[in-house]
């Protein structure tokens, strides 16, 4: 849920509640005031009638208008307290119930007592109350609406530094050398956030670089002892008087050392690619490189009975590092050769937009997508380290190429879509 939605969820019911309570009380107060006003008018009528009787000794004429009625009723009572009341009278003409405010009071006409009644219609007052209420409510609603909209705009503006920081964090990459660039803000909370983010990213980057450096250094340091092991085995195996058992042992050691050495080299390569040590980007003639590579493996493919079908466009240039292009090609093609049947086929397609290699081969046991992960491999044989595809993936990642690996119709299909290839 968005912050503003959460905020609105709380504030809107409160505002509506306050609105209802205040409008009801507003109505009641207003009504009260107007009734009071009406009562005052009735008192003026009363005074006029009493004055009229005192001056003329006659009762004034009764009247029966729509909004004011006066009539008299003789009474035996000599004392009567003024009485205010409200009554609802059904109006036949207009088919509605109208409210009237009335006053009953005692009039003394030369010893003859009458109860005088003056009624004034409340209709007008009601109308005025309603009108005032409507106008007021309308103003309040408009005000609220404006407040609501301006809140949204204001909030969006206020949260902008936050969004900026978030975006920067999203684009942040450990391996990238450029630091995170946070927008300056004068809001203390965001300042604090930015400081923390800056601190964290710096720390993470530092740790990551240290880890990478460690991997690389460790790999380097491993090279020399590995070289010694391999060379000593080679020397030892030259000996003429080795027993069959010796040879077997030597062979196992040799294979393990060879595998370790390949593993180490691949890990070193991965570390280097991720460290962006292949920063030198040029326009690589991918067609030429691919053809040259395939020619190099011509005999090998022939020996294994592999049929290679080529659909390679000429002069396809790709902006990338030359060494990485070679590694990319060799890893994909050698995979297609290794994980193939004797007498199988390989299709190699290259256009300015994409590079696709498909080959016959056994069905993979796991999701093809997972094979991009490190040490994910199909076979347990020593000739597969499970790093080839993850090297390919790492290379495509740093150049923003799209890579997919599918197994369809008994064929493994690896496809790379270049996003910034340029025509020759």
């Amino acid at each position, binding site marked *: 849920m968005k912050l503003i939605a959460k905020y609105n969820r709380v504030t809107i019911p409160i505002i509506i509640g306050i609105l209802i309570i205040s409008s009801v009380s507003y109505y009641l107060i207003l009504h009260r005031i107007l009734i009071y006003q009406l009562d005052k008018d009735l008192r003026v009528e009363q005074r006029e009638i009493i004055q009229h009787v005192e001056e003329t000794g006659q009762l004034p004429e009764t009247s029966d208008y729509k909004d004011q009625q006066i009539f008299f009723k003789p009474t035996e009572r000599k004392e009567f307290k003024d009485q205010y009341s409200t009554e609802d009278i059904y109006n036949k003409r207009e088919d509605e119930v109208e409210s009237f405010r009335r006053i009953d009071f005692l009039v003394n006409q030369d010893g003859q007592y009458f109860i005088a009644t003056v009624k004034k219609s409340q209709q007008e007052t009601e109308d005025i109350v309603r009108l005032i209420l409507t106008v007021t409510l309308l103003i309040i609603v408009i005000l609220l609406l404006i407040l609501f909209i301006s809140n949204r705009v204001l909030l969006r503006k206020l949260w902008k530094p936050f969004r900026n920081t978030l975006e920067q964090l999203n684009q942040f990459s450990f391996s990238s050398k450029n630091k995170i660039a946070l927008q300056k803000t004068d809001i203390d909370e965001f300042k604090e956030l930015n400081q923390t983010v800056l601190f964290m990213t710096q720390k993470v980057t530092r740790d990551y670089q240290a880890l990478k450096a460690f991997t690389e250094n460790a790999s*380097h340091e491993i*090279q*020399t002892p*590995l*070289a*010694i*092991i*391999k*060379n*000593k085995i*080679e*020397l030892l*195996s*030259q000996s003429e008087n080795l027993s*069959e058992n010796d*040879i*077997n042992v*030597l*062979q196992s050691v*040799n*294979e393990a050392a*060879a*595998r370790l*050495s*390949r593993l180490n*080299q691949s890990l*070193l390569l991965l570390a*280097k690619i991720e460290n962006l*040590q*292949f920063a030198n980007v040029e326009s690589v003639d991918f067609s030429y490189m691919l053809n040259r590579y395939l020619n*190099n*493996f011509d*005999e*090998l493919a022939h*020996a*294994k009975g592999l049929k290679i079908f080529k659909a390679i466009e000429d002069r396809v240039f790709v902006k990338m590092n030359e*060494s990485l292009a070679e590694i990319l090609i*060799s*890893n994909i093609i*050698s995979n297609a*050769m*290794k994980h193939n049947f004797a007498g199988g086929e390989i299709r190699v397609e290259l256009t300015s937009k994409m590079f696709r290699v498909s080959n016959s081969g056994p069905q993979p046991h796991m999701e093809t997508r997972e094979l991009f992960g490190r040490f994910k491999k199909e076979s347990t044989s*020593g*000739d*597969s380290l499970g790093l*080839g595809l993850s090297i390919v993936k790492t290379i495509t990642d740093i150049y923003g190429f799209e890579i997919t690996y599918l197994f369809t119709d008994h064929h493994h299909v690896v496809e790379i879509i270049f996003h910034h290839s340029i025509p020759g």
Partner: protein
Amino acid sequence: MKILIIEDEKALSESIADYLSVHEYSCETAENYHSALQKIEYNLYDCILLDITLPGGDGLKILEQIKEDKRKDGVLIISAKNSLDDKITGLNLGADDYLSKPFHLSELNARVAAIIRRKNFDGNSIIHFENLSVDTQKKLVTVENKPVELTRKEYELLLYFVSNKRRLISKDAIAEHLWGNEMGGNYDFIYTHIKNLRKKLMDAGDADYIKSVYGMGYKFTDK
């Protein structure tokens, strides 16, 4: 043939010296920057194996020194770094070849032999082995003076064998020599090449020199 091995790792330089001495090379070793410079000052070598990460100084400086003095010593850089920059800088400075650790001794030996062949340009680019000869300039193979048609990989394989004659070469070393690292560990490919090469040599004149050594690899030998 005199070879200088500049390598701070004693076990490694011993192995290299051991392997190379069998091939009629006399090897000297230097373990640090200064002793290397000293040896170079007083001797000429056919080939210098140079580790560029040395105690006491940068190995590339030694290379610069050699080139400054306009010496003809062949230089093969061996490095644990396997970094492209070093390779390019090294070759630009005039090194003849570059090999990264860990390497097969047979590979090193073949590279040294190639460097020395190129240095001693005066006609002797033909390698003889019994009734077989390989002209490394014309890339021509003959058995009893009859030419043998070889494919490119078969030729590379034969040259590798001849350079390491009478030594056991592991299948791994052969695979890496022919196709580089990415085919390493995959031996069924080399089998076909070796079978074809052996057949061609046999057909040409009973030159059956490729012996399979059980479990280990192959040996190119007349015995």
